């Protein structure tokens, strides 16, 4: 049996010479739900972008048993659903339907299958009625749900979310947490929202200056005020 995500000694330097990741190793078992926290600029987004080969550093990244590299990229991208912080970056088609259908269409699925995928993805996020709507006019919370649907329609095994609750009001945030709790996939969530971590994610990884500073049960780490303080975090 393989692990969902295996990262071994990963380092990455941006073209301008900024070292964003330094020797990061991390293993996530299938079905695990893991939080990735740390101050601004810690390298969280950079790490997430390695999981489907958008960035390529030194070291080894394996997802669902597939090494993330050249010939596997297509399958890796189908297996990893990456949801970016700003849903506006993810919703670039005229209608919600087109957006959710992008992944399946790109995979070359037959039209009937595409329809079925879109329908079930929208149902999963509770937005079935929105298929014909124009994404641009939706509220932030609604956009966020659609953005998640756009990756669910690809039937990913792993869901990777970059700061999913940023900019949501408390009601929309609550709805989103409930939704994520109900999804069965392996999940890796980068966030500043430690209250959400406590509720939703049993395991927590602290990243700081491109290194893994701590990795363990969220409840334990969140109780350690000194540790949090040292990495620019705060008890929720």
């Amino acid at each position: 049996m393989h692990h969902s995500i295996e990262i071994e000694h990963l380092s990455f330097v941006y073209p301008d010479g900024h070292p964003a990741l330094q020797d990061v190793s991390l293993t996530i078992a299938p079905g695990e739900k893991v939080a990735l926290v740390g101050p601004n600029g810690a390298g969280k987004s950079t790490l997430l972008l390695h999981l489907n080969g958008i960035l390529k550093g030194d070291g080894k990244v394996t997802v669902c048993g597939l090494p993330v590299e050249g010939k596997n990229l297509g399958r890796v991208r189908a297996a990893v659903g990456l949801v970016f912080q700003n849903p506006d970056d993810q919703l670039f088609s005229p209608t919600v339907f087109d957006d959710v259908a992008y992944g399946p269409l790109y995979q070359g699925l037959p039209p009937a299958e595409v329809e079925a995928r879109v329908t079930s993805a929208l149902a999963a996020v509770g937005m079935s009625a929105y298929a014909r709507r124009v994404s641009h006019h939706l509220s932030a919370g609604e956009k966020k749900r659609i953005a998640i649907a756009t990756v669910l329609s690809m039937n990913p095994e792993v869901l990777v979310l970059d700061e999913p609750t940023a900019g949501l009001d408390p009601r929309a945030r609550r709805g989103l947490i409930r939704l994520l709790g109900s999804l069965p996939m392996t999940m890796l969530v980068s966030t500043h929202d430690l209250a959400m971590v406590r509720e939703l994610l049993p395991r927590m990884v602290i990243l700081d200056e491109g290194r893994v500073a701590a990795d363990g049960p969220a409840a334990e780490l969140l109780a350690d005020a000194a540790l949090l303080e040292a990495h620019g975090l705060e008890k929720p």
Partner: protein
Amino acid sequence: MHIHFLDPYRAGNSPLHAADARLKFVLTLAFILTASLTPPAAWPVYILLLALILSIEILSGLGVGPVLKRSLLALPFVLAALPLVFTVEGQALFSLPLGAWTLTASVEGLARFVSVALKSWLSVQAAIVLAACTPFPELLQAMRAVGLPRLLVAMFGLTWRYLFVLADEALRLMRARAARSGAVSSTSLKAGGNVAWRAGVTGGMAGSLFLRAFERSDRIYVAMLSRGYDGEVRALPLPAFTAAHWLTLTAGLALLALLLGFGLLFWG
């Protein structure tokens, strides 16, 4: 996510970095004009101009290598001038049999072609040095100083400021698209859709970028109003242009004029 590499400015503390932007701007334009007016085949003048610009590159601390590498940017366009080698009449150099025709290269044609390529190469180096040694905000001041409409300069400034914001947005859009461009393992399906569909999706991205920019401009307008903007573009007065500046400017222009005069006199 940042697009640092879009900004061609390279910080440094060379005399060139410290020089007044107005001076650099005017002298760069004069240099390009000189190269442009120099007659074809005035090789010594080209060599002197090259020596001049290479010295400046060393002085600027940018290093000759990086500038030359960047200057290859204009290279593809050289193809447009290549036919000159064969179409200008003159002393035959060599012939290329091409099926029914024969192309005959002439010495004069080759000279014209090399001249055009050299002019272009010299000019692009000058422009690169200017952009790499002058922060854009100072270039804006220079543009104001040479009399460009203040309104246009204000727009340039705003565009430059938001270029980075929007380029970041474009980058994130492309990443999001790449992240969802996956293929399933069964090899019977051909991933990627057709070209028209891909172009259409890209169009959607352009449309969304445009729309967000449009709405952002509303918010910026409100922010500007909140700080007293009334349609008039105002700016602090430019720092004084001292006697030393005038002297440098005159000397620079005189040198270029001399080189140009030399070229026109003997090859014009």
